[in-house]
């Protein structure tokens, strides 16, 4: 009896789905205007967040060249530039694996795995990146304070500038981190029950 009621219920759902298709057959849901809009959309290879981050990192690397002029040791300047270029590469690599056009044909399970992997890599990167950034900032303040070619007033000016930059960087970084995490968690939540191995 229970099997029968379940069967009729499922049959009813199939009939309701047929009704939906019949209704949709009578409707014009797509037209030339919509298709035109879709095909003329600019397809970017990287999403906006990643692109802005990489641009910022490259700008910061080029700005770091000015460290040479104010008397910061060359090794410190080179280290800064290399670190920023590596960060830009890291950002590109992180986002490259989960681009829409790459995963659009993947199945749900694969998207879950890629998103989960990306989230883990992101968390690991933060554990390394934040202490390194603190170390670098402490090193920068030390080098500015001990630089013999800069007068005391200019040193104060640079230090205030560095602190302002640090605060701005923390705020921007925190907002970006929240947005990225939100996106990844949203995807994972939607398909969260896929934890079984195939």
């Amino acid at each position, binding site marked *: 009896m*229970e099997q029968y*009621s*379940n069967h009729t*219920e*499922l049959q009813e*759902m*199939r*009939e*309701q*789905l047929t*009704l*939906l*298709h*019949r*209704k*949709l*057959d009578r*409707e*014009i*849901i*797509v*037209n*030339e*205007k*919509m*298709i035109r*809009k*879709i*095909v003329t*959309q600019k*397809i970017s290879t990287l999403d906006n967040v990643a692109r802005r981050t990489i641009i910022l990192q490259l700008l910061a690397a080029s700005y770091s060249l000015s460290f040479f002029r104010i008397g910061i040791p060359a090794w410190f300047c080179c280290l800064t530039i290399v670190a920023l270029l590596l960060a830009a590469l890291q950002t590109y690599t992180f986002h490259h694996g989960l681009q*829409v*056009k*790459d*995963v*659009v*044909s*993947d*199945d*749900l*399970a*694969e*998207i879950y795995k890629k998103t989960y992997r990306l989230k883990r890599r992101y968390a690991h990167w933060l554990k390394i990146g934040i202490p390194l950034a603190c170390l670098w900032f402490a090193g920068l303040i030390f080098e500015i304070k001990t630089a013999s070619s800069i007068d005391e007033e200019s040193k104060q000016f640079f230090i205030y500038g560095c602190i302002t930059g640090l605060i701005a960087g923390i705020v921007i970084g925190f907002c970006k981190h929240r947005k990225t995490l*939100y*996106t990844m968690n*949203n*995807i994972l939540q*939607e*398909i*969260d*029950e*896929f934890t*079984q191995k*195939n």
Partner: protein
Amino acid sequence: MDTSETEFAQIVKEHKNTIYTVCFMFSKDSDEINDLFQESLLNLWKGLPNFQGKSDISTWIWRVCFNTCVSSERKKKRNITVPLPTDLNLFEDKDEDSRQIRMLYDRIHRLKPFDRAIVLLWLENMSYEEIASIVGISVKNVSVRLFRIKEELKKMSNN
């Protein structure tokens, strides 16, 4: 339009029902259907060059639509999109067909997104192999999940 655009337009028109059905089952209102539908079209357009006929076109379309609906960020601010050229509003229309369709929606919408995908494909008379290929789990897993989904649907109607 050039060849790829013509091909795209043709594919979309042939499969508009599939795309709309998936978007409907994953949305909460007609504005969201609009957003998801157009995002699905955009993803189909982006993915078309990479689709090399490895699977059946309808399998690919199902997959892209599910991926879009499941992965779509629920934006607080709606994008300004071209409105769908239809007055159809399955959430509010009062005719008997719409009422029946809403009953189907209510049942399916209470399931988790992953299960929604599986049950929709099953209701479309797809084989377990086809469902497994679209969703990305084993055939055995499809069978187990479908059994659980049917139990859940039974519980819902008993309540």
